[in-house]
């Protein structure tokens, strides 16, 4: 007996008003027409529920387990967003002091010609794209977004006839680019759980050596900016050459002053968790006029700019992590809701099956008793 047809028959028999639902005759006629029921699949949900009480019960159990896992993942991700925010807050003293120093130094150096390797602007023949993805999946459209942006940029660069190479950070980006051997990849790096200075340093070393040895003339950073708990934005930023003033420029040359630090903050508004982005103008007092430079100001700038590079890369990694974790939170929340819905549907059809089975047994008993009497 093909049980998959019973369920739709049972549902469709509920609809026509002339058939009394509890009349055994109606049910018998339903039992006798298994093949005709296949075409009338007027079941409420569009899914085909497989037959068999045991299978249904197994399915309900597995959905329940999956729901527990996705809910746990959602809570873990929510905790991680808070940690990511704390990491950004912890990195602020460094970047604030750095910007102060950069500004004061630039004031002193205004008349001089600054030629530091990291700021050298060359005609662009080759561009390095630093793409930041995640190590783990189950984060919704996060990795897709940034990879699509990377592909877009690659297409733009190819159209302009500029060669490119990719430095991929994160396992997901790694697997994507590995499957596409036509995209030259320089190095695969892993993102890890928490962005540390060591990791940022490793990436900075790579980028630094590529740029200084003149293998590439421009380095662009592609990461996902954390806008809010539900929205994140893949952006492209020009990492190298640095502007001596410490401006942050994006691929189109639109520059933002480094003294305007933008950072995100988790707060609660009306009892719900939200993210606010604040732009803070860092006060930039100049050096006291008697401040002596132990070395040549240009040498000092030479020492400062790698610091700036490191902090930029670290900030990008942190924001990327925050976006990844909030995307995972949203995806797992959706998954949990879907699991609840699926469990409900399965439970309903399980109960129907169970009742149908009981009714069938009762009818058999009645028929048997009838035959005997």
């Amino acid at each position, binding site marked *: 007996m093909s049980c998959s047809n019973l369920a739709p028959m049972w549902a469709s028999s509920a609809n026509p008003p002339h058939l009394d639902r509890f009349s055994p005759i109606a049910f018998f006629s339903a039992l006798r027409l298994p093949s005709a029921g296949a075409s009338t699949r007027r079941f409420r949900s569009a899914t085909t529920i497989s037959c068999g009480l045991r299978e249904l019960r197994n399915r309900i159990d597995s959905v329940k387990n999956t729901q527990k896992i996705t809910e746990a993942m959602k809570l873990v991700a929510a905790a991680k967003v808070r940690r990511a925010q704390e*990491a950004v807050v*912890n*990195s602020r*003293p*460094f*970047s604030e*002091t*750095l910007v102060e*120093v950069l500004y004061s*130094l630039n004031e002193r150096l205004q008349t001089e010609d600054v030629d530091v390797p990291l700021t050298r602007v060359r005609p662009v023949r080759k561009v390095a794209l630093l793409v930041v993805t995640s190590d783990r999946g189950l984060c919704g459209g996060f990795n897709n977004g940034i990879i699509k942006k990377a592909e877009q940029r690659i297409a733009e660069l190819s159209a302009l006839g500029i060669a490119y190479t990719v430095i991929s950070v994160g396992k997901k980006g790694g697997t994507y680019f590995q499957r596409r051997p036509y995209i030259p990849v320089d190095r695969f790096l892993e993102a890890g759980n928490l*962005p*540390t*200075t*060591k990791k*940022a*340093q490793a990436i900075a*070393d*790579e980028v*630094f*050596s*590529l740029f*200084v*040895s003149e*293998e590439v003339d421009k380095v662009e950073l592609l990461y996902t900016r954390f806008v809010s708990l539900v929205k994140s934005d893949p952006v492209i930023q020009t990492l190298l050459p640095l502007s001596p003033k410490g401006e942050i420029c994006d691929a189109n040359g639109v520059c933002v002053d480094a003294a305007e630090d933008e950072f995100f903050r988790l707060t609660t508004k009306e009892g719900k968790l939200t993210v606010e982005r604040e732009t803070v103008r860092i006060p930039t007092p100049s*050096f*006291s006029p*008697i*401040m*002596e*430079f*132990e*070395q040549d100001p240009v*040498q*000092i700038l*030479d*020492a*400062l700019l*790698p*610091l700036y590079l*490191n*902090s930029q890369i*670290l900030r990008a990694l942190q924001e990327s992590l925050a976006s990844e974790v909030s995307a995972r939170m949203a995806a797992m929340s959706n998954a949990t809701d879907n699991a609840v819905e699926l469990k409900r549907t399965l439970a309903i059809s399980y109960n129907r099956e169970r009742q149908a089975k009981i009714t069938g047994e009762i009818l058999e008993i009645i028929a048997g008793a009838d035959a005997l009497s």
Partner: protein
Amino acid sequence: MTLNLCVLTPNRIIWDSEVKEIILSTNSGQIGVLPNHAPIATAVDIGLLRIRLNNDQWLTVALMGGFARIGNNEITILGNDAEISTDIDPQEAQQALEIAEANLSGAEGKRQAIEANLALRRARTRVEAVNVISYTS
């Protein structure tokens, strides 16, 4: 009069309290800073930062380059990375040094040589930080 020392790295504050004296490795040699030092700004090399605490004990920090600003009894050091010697595992630091040396000898081309050199200097600094003999004066 004590100095207020602040050691910052991109992801956290390593040190933020008062000290008696520090010895810093700069590109132009080592400099010692006592209270009421003249205000200077200097680039810091990959090397050791020795801190003399208020109880006359010396603490060593492996500093991976950066910048230092000294003025008005306030010292601010911005470092690429900094590790207090007590946080460094000697075995791991030694292994890292050996790996860095191997990488340097196997480096081809200008670019790899630059990277390998930097990595070697850092590994060496970490090992030195662990091995330094602490003395009390």
